[in-house]
């Protein structure tokens, strides 16, 4: 399977850290080698937060994905500004249209935009936008496996309330389903 170098970025409260953890954890359950690395420090306070996830078949060397990302999952405008150039040609930019009102400037990457915050609100809580993004990512990349993502929920969040579990699951599904239905895909030039 292909190695994935994923960068998840957004505002502090948008759940980009958990999003990354879920991918890493589920990929681990898929049997792959993974690392997850957060940005940390005061910049997380209110500012932009991001994390790096590497999924590979051999032990991972550098866990940092601030260059050569194969996927960028981006939830707000400042993060797009900062990381747009970090994606390899042919890579994927998955963006939250609800908070990003500009187009991606690059022509050599796959861009998928969706109204994640709005969709999450429809599912019951706008804070579940990260799950919408995760669902879309899974649909676009065909990995990690659904089953393992759901297993990862409890590993990452602990055994939380079943309502939040159901909400997350619903948002995940909604993001997943949206890909074929609503997506606007531009192939790289």
């Amino acid at each position: 399977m292909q190695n994935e170098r994923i960068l998840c970025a957004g505002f502090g409260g948008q759940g980009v850290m958990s999003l990354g953890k879920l991918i890493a954890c589920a990929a681990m359950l898929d049997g792959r080698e993974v690392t997850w690395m957060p940005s940390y420090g005061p910049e997380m306070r209110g500012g932009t937060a991001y994390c790096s996830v590497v999924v590979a078949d051999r032990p991972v060397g550098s866990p940092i994905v601030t260059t050569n990302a194969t996927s960028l999952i981006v939830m707000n405008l400042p993060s797009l500004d900062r990381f747009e150039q970090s994606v390899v040609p042919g890579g994927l930019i998955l963006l939250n249209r609800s908070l990003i009102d500009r187009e991606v400037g690059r022509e050599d990457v796959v861009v998928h935009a969706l109204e994640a915050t709005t969709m999450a609100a429809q599912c019951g809580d706008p804070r579940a936008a990260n799950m919408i993004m995760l669902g879309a990512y899974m649909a676009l990349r065909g990995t990690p496996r659904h089953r393992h993502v759901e297993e990862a929920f409890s590993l990452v969040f602990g055994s939380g309330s079943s309502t939040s579990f159901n909400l997350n699951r619903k948002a995940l599904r909604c993001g997943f389903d949206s890909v074929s239905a609503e997506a606007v895909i531009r192939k790289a030039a």
Partner: protein
Amino acid sequence: MSVIFKKTTGLTEAATHYCPGCTHGIAHRLVGEALEELGLLGDTIGCASVGCSIFSYNYFNVDMIECSHGRAPAVATGIKRTVPDKTVFTYQGDGDLAAIGTAEIVHAAHRGENITVIFINNAIYGMTGGQMAPTTLPGQKATTAPAGRIAEFSGRPLKMSEMLAEVPGAAYVERVSLHHPKYIRKAKKAILKGFTCQLAKGGFAMVELLSTCPTGWGLDPVEAMEWLEANMIPYYPLGVLKTPEEV
């Protein structure tokens, strides 16, 4: 029409990095206003401590120095003893002043150093992510006291102002609160007094400001203010603990 409130020139234009609703911002404004009103901005050297306020040197419109964790009173001593005509203050959190920096604050008071100490007591280590401070209240949760502080295990919270008021060299010690505009006005007066005490060569002055850390406490900013009022003030009573005759 006349402007009855505008941003003090005691603060720079920089936006603070503080969390939404963090009272560090209020405290900054009060210090900036006090220095401006006393005409001291050009003659002041501030000592930033290690805590969320470490970047305060980006916000105060005065010359500033960054001090190692807890050591601001020693650094301030070095400065004041070198340029006694400058106004020198420290701005310290409760982790900084009441834990690692205990010896330095006690001895600045002991020597009667003619400096002003702004002590932000938010009952937690904000910057490092909400660990228990010596000032954390019994039952209050912290990342290193996951079940809440247990007095039998960690002791009852340290009352720095009461303790320092016992030190002969301390001239002025007052505890105020930032939880409500009415109290914020009083806090401002105390800070002014803290600086005029220094101008009068009165000796060591400290103003303790009861503060919130919404992030560390896991409360929204408004709830945090309520929590402060309901929990901190009863344990940390407000008021003047020591005052020089003349100030």
